[in-house]
């Protein structure tokens, strides 16, 4: 299980190649990538992501442990960036490896739902209209109840 919180961009293909390398016991590898989306005003310049160093790694570690306890999971990878990003940049990725796809998909969705509202990250959108913090939504919180 690998958790990385970093400022630097990551190479999606290389990360997945290395995650999948040498696994003969895992029939399924699922991955999700979060991308900076320019949806609100169409003139987003920068997405700034702040986090809580120390707690972030710890909180994600707990979420990954919980996923391991719930599903038959061979491995998991979480990379989440912080700092300044532009539209189209990749914010984060999750990958799961499991003997069967049902576990790999479910664990990846669980990780995403919990990362959204239980890992200490905050997004700020800076556009021509000014800067504003992205508000958490009721849907994000409600998504946790299905687990």
């Amino acid at each position, binding site marked *: 299980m690998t958790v990385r919180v970093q400022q630097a961009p990551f190479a999606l293909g290389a990360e997945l190649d290395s995650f999948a390398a040498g696994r003969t016991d895992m029939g399924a590898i699922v991955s999700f990538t979060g991308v900076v989306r320019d949806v609100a005003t169409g003139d987003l310049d920068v997405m700034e992501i702040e986090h809580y160093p120390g*707690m972030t790694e710890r909180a994600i570690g707990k979420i990954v442990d919980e996923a391991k306890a719930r599903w038959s999971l061979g491995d998991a990878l979480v990379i989440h960036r912080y700092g300044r990003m532009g539209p189209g940049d990749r914010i984060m990725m999750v990958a799961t490896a499991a003997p069967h796809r049902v576990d790999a998909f479910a664990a990846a969705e669980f990780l995403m739902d919990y990362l*959204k509202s239980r890992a200490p990250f905050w997004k700020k959108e800076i556009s021509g209209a000014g800067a504003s913090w992205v508000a958490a939504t009721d849907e994000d919180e409600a998504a946790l109840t299905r687990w």
Partner: protein
Amino acid sequence: MKLDVLYFAWLRERIGLSQERIETEARTVAELVSELRAREDRYDLAFSDLSAIRVAVDQDLTEFDAELTDAREVAFFPPMTGG
């Protein structure tokens, strides 16, 4: 008791600090919040709606009625928006 108090996102901006060390006798997070609010308007304003604020004690997410016995670090922040 000496405590490191951390603020993130809009709480950090409203209070104008990311971190401070304070001397307090507060027994719970709620008591600590009352103490902070009594200090200055910027704290009072930042903490005016507790439903919009989350708290972590020693880097574990908790509730406002949590006790501060042996705590070293308390962090306040808005609901998280990762992913």
